């Protein structure tokens, strides 16, 4: 069964067609990827799925339910957790509070006006922090973390929402090769352990081919190709628009 299904999704800004009628399916339990050059429409697609922008046309189904144009907080509550390309955390809260706050929101305990904060989700938050490898920094302000750690914290926040589907927008952006490898392993491990589905966008090709079951290649708001990693690697059109660039720039 498909956990996420998109049909004929369309969005333009002024005269620019950012997403031009896309169809996409993510099967339950899969880790799928969307790749494409800058401006291909990947982030816009995420913004449409997660309710940040209203869609011009088309529908989005999550677990068979139509979620098109629901408000973001509702979509989040239904089980879609998203991270952002530009890391989006609470900088002046501690690392621990970032996670604790998320638990409070998503479990509906945020309106406890006179209770002691320490009694809420301390263990759960610590568990998530050790999962994403940040337990030693729990007391530090999130804003002073290194870029890679911040990304991991955001992953922790997304996990704390208790999602069934993760939308990760360039989860390894700004990380060193070693950090990238670690993070990818982490995502894979967590997805398997919690039986989550994942849809992520990426720039780094090795990352994508390393873990994705299914890859969708976008350019100018449309799908150029879609298939298993090997099919994509062999696809001529993809090589032209995507790997062509990469090969040139890496030489």
């Amino acid at each position, binding site marked *: 069964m498909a956990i996420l299904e998109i049909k004929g999704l369309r969005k333009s800004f002024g005269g620019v067609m950012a997403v031009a009628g896309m169809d996409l399916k993510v099967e339950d339990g899969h880790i799928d990827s969307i790749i494409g050059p800058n401006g291909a429409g990947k982030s816009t697609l995420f913004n449409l799925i*997660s309710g940040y922008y209203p869609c011009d046309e088309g529908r989005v189904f999550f677990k068979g339910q139509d979620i098109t144009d629901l408000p*973001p*907080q*509702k979509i*989040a*509550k239904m089980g879609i*957790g*998203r991270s952002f390309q530009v890391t*989006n*955390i*609470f*900088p*002046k*809260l501690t690392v621990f*509070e*970032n996670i*604790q*706050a*998320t638990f*409070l*929101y*998503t479990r509906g*305990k*945020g*309106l*406890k*006006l*006179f*209770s*002691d*904060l320490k009694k*809420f989700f301390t263990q759960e938050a610590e568990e998530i922090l050790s999962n994403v490898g940040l337990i030693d920094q729990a007391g530090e302000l999130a804003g002073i973390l290194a870029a890679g750690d911040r990304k991991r914290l955001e992953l922790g*926040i*997304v996990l*704390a*929402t208790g999602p069934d589907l993760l939308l990760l927008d360039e989860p390894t952006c700004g990380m060193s090769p070693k950090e990238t490898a670690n993070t990818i392993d982490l995502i894979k491990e967590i997805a398997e352990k919690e039986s989550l589905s994942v849809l992520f966008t990426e720039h780094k090709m090795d990352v994508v081919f390393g873990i994705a079951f299914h890859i969708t290649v976008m350019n100018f708001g449309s799908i150029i190709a879609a298939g298993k990693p090997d099919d994509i690697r062999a696809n001529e059109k993809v090589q032209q628009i995507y790997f062509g660039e990469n090969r040139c720039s890496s030489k």
Partner: protein
Amino acid sequence: MQAERKNSAAKWLYGAITALVLIILPFVLEKGFSEYYLYLATKIMVWALFAMSFNLALGYGGMMSFGHAAFFGIGAYTCSLLLVKTSCPLPLAFVIAPFVAAGAGVIIGFFSVRIKGVFYFATITLSFAQLAYILAFKWRSFTFGDDGIQGIPIPALISTDETYINYYFFALIIIVICIYVLWKIVKSPFGLMLRSLRENPERATFVGMKVENYRLIAFVISAFFSGIAGVLYAFLETAISPDILFWSMSGEVILMGLLGGMHIFLGPALGATIMVLLNSFITSYTEYWGMVLGIALILIVLFFPKGVGGLMLEQYQKWMKRKGV
């Protein structure tokens, strides 16, 4: 564990010292100085409560309200009008007033909290507050207009005719209770929610939070406690005028927050202390209080953006570190 116990012992010690000072202070002021200083001390406490209530909206909720004079004024007016125009007993009037202020908070907040951007938030709250001011100013038959309300009847027990001592303790007890409740709120799950949405409303939305609801609740609580401060102010002065609803009152409470440090729980109280004292001393030398205040604030915003409280806290932490090494 041991450090924790030591810490909590230190907290009790500081608390006991503060309590002792607050209890002895009025007698020292009255005997050693004059009744005026006792009045001033009470005034500082009332303003401290107003500033801390306001800071729940600004410092914790990230809402730059430029209309908090409305809640302060509505609290003061409600209680005073009930006492002057009806036979409502004082305790009841005291209880009704903050709820009316909170009601005004619901109305103003309903329209304000969904507005994005500091500037527009400030503008809409300012407009509502000015509306309240105009009502108090022009609706003579109901509010006595610019004559204000004189001679608010206050029972002998807390009367300020002879001495301010009784009223000082009355206000102290109420204010300590209010500050304790505010402290509980700030340290509760709700307090963490507020800080997080102040930091990053977008992220908060994407983890499933209805930002407007939380902001509205914080705004209404803030209005409620501002209303209590207004009532205490009316009793202290025994007379009020529409001036307490004017925008400059809202401005003053903002300045207290900035001056003391809006990200520190007691910061606004410190700001209130400094401003009330400065006001009293400067106006006895020159009538250009506003100018002195303006210059002081420009300097503070430029050089100590965390406020006097933030500066003190920083120095204290540095000192502790040095001591630790």
